[in-house]
Every structure is written in C-alpha cells, then in structure tokens.
C-alpha cells in the first residue's frame, strides 16, 4: 500500500509543512479570539429586549448556520473587491472564519446562559442586585463553566475549517500539501503528512475538551 512512499520528499518539505502548521495555528487562534467577541455580542443581541436588535442577531446567526463556510469565504473573497475594498486573502479568510464561528459561539454562549435556572436570577433580584451585578456575580460564573467544553469543540471545528482558506490561496497547512502535490506530484506524501499534523492538533484539543467536561461533571456532583 505504501510502496514507494517517499519520506525524503516529506523531510525536504518539512520546513514548509512546519510553516503551514504555524500559519494554521495562528489563523485559528486569531479567528477564535475574534469569534468569541463576535459571538458574545451576537448572543447579547439575541437575548436583547429590543426587537430590532434581536431580529438582526437572529438573521445573522441563522444565515451563517444554514450556508456552507466555503460559500461564505467566496462571498467575501469575490464580494469585497466589487465594493472597492482590496483586502488580502489572509484577512478575508480570517474575516469569514470569525463571522462563521461567531454565529456558532453565540448559540453555545446562549445555551450556557439559559442553563442558569430562573430562580437564581429571581434570587438575585430579590437580593437587590442590579442587572450588571446579577450578570457578573450570578449568571456568568455559572454559565461560563458550562460553555467551556462546547467552545473547545468549536475550536476543533475552527482548526479544520481553516483548511478551506487554502481555496483562496492562503499559505496554511492544506495549501502546503497542494503545493507539494503540484510541484512534485506526490499527493500521498503530501496529504498524509497534512492529515497527520491535523490529527495532532485534534488529539490535543480533544483531550482538553474531555478533561474540561469531566471537571465540569465533578464540580456539579459536589
């Protein structure tokens, strides 16, 4: 099956693979950080008492969740120039990833917040806490723990999603594989190596997610 699998080429291209890995890593971290901000804002909008704000947030979340990421990437990649905006591929990609993950994170945060029982909030009101105090001292401390495992799950999805940026020629891990394929025509060497690196990231994040899940269950049990 792996007859003639050329390890020399992999070794030769290792610097490129490592650079691709680093870029995938950086893209994912930056997008995740921005997506967290977008997600929290969208979630606040989703739970807002004003109908207009709520409507806009719902429209954003639902339109992102029911269209493919690749279409969103192309939308910005081909769309921004028609608005006269010349944005480099990398920034376009991060924008698309940020908005995409933001919508999913908004739902994760919302699930966390609504998991706090109403009685807690009522207890806060009758203790004379105002809205921000209730959020700060009662709702968020309970909601945030709840959101950690699904957020790590979303981080896994985000790392895998960042592979689609190769379609708009951002030099991340998958793109390095494509380059090796087109320069040497060695797709097996290229994509098995790429897959290996993704699997490494996956197992690290997955064990983190499992660990945080376990911790959460233990905390609840006590």
């Amino acid at each position: 099956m792996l007859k003639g699998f050329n390890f020399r080429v992999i070794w030769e291209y290792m610097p490129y693979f490592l650079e691709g890995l680093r870029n995938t890593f950086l893209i994912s971290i930056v997008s995740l950080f921005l997506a967290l901000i977008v997600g929290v804002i969208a979630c606040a909008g989703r739970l807002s008492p004003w109908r207009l704000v709520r409507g806009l947030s719902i429209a954003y979340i639902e339109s992102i969740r029911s269209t493919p990421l690749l279409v969103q990437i192309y939308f910005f990649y081909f769309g921004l120039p028609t608005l006269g905006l010349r944005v480099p591929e990398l920034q376009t990609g991060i924008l698309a990833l940020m908005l995409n993950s933001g919508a999913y994170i908004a739902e994760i945060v919302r699930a966390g917040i609504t998991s706090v029982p109403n009685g807690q909030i009522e207890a806060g009101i009758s203790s004379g806490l105002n809205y921000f105090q209730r959020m700060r001292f009662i709702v968020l401390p309970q909601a945030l723990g709840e959101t950690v495992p699904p957020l790590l799950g979303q981080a896994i999805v985000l790392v895998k999603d960042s592979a689609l940026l190769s379609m708009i020629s951002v030099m991340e891990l998958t793109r390095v594989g494509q380059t090796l394929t087109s320069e040497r025509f060695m797709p097996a060497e290229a994509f098995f190596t790429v897959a290996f690196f993704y699997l490494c990231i996956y197992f690290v994040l997955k064990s983190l997610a499992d660990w945080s899940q376990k911790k959460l269950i233990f905390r609840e049990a006590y």
Partner: protein
Amino acid sequence: MMLFYFQRLVEILPFFFKGLWMTVVVSGISLALGTILGFLLGIIRASGNRFIKPVIGVYVALIRGTPFVVQIFIVFFILPDWGIQLAAFPAAILALTILGTAFICEIVAGGIKSVHSGQWEAAASSGLNRYQQLRYVILPQSLQTILPPLVGQYVLLIKDSSVVSVIGVVELTRVGWLTVVRIPEGLMVFSLVGILYFAISYPLIRLSNNMEKRLATQQVML
C-alpha cells in the same frame, strides 16, 4: 451596470437550479448510504465485540480529526495510485459517505448507550433474542435521542457537500465559482448561492429544533 449583471444572472438562473439539483443528489445519496452504514457501525460500536470496536473508534477519530478538504484530496488523488480510478462524482459520494458514516455512527452509538441497561435485561428476561431486543426495545427508545442530532448532521453534510466543488463536481458552489468569472459581482452571485443553500438547510434546522423541543416535552409528560 449592476442592473445589467442582475439581468444576466436572472438569465442563467436555470444553471443555478441545476447546481442545486446536483447538490441535492450528491448529498442525498451520501446521506442515505451514510445513514445505513452509520446505524450498522453505531450498533456494533455500542453493543459489539472487542475487536471491531477499537477499529471503529480509530476510523471515527481519523475522520473527525482531519478536515474534509484533505479527505477529499486523499480520495481523489491517492486512490488512483492504488489502482482505483474514480471520476469526480463517485469520488465525492465516497468521501461524503465516509464522512457521514463516521458522524452518524457516533450519534447512533450515543443514542443506544443512553437507554438504561435495565431495558436490555428486561427484554432478555422476556425471552427476546439479541436482534429482537434491539429491534423492539432498544432502538425505538434510542431514536428519541438519535433523531434531532441526526437531522442536524444532515444539515452539516449538505453544507460539507460544497467542498466537493474543489474536485470539479458542478454543484451549487461550483456554479457560483464558474459564474463569478463571467459576472464579476461576487456579492450578488454568492448571495444567490447562499439563498439556495438556505432554502434546503433552514427547514431541516427548524425540523431538528422542533423535534428536540417535542421530544423534551414528551419526556417530561411520561
């Protein structure tokens, strides 16, 4: 100018509907195959034997840990090295089925495990054989937990089918990509593509949400 392009876009609308049909066909066939195989593997994983279980576990981890683009490149570029030459369409079906099977298998295994073990014992002591226990006692109960995430998974698969455009299957995303070269209005073209995806995904998302709600109230009433 924009109006002109809009008219052009309306003229070639049938091309988009063809793309939509291709998306429906590709994802429909892989969904059907993935559901059958996923149920089989899920049942084996939940109840089965010590040797096959870890094999399924490794398969699921490999699929969940790597991006779908990389998987499709492996299917399309590497299988020919081993003497399996596939055209773009069957390669797309194969890759999507492999993906869908892995995720559905997890959902089914989770659903079966969520049924209380006393149910197995009760079914066994009623004189049902292994198949009858599964068919008449366990599966009907686990369907409650399986169905909502299963439909959610269908939405994810339909969205993932956009990625098969990279190997040249002319489905909806590919149609958008081909159109944007002639009609350089990226926002307009990919909004249309997004709306068509929305039209098939959103009803399924609503269905999944409703099922979840209905099943939740059903359980409370029991």
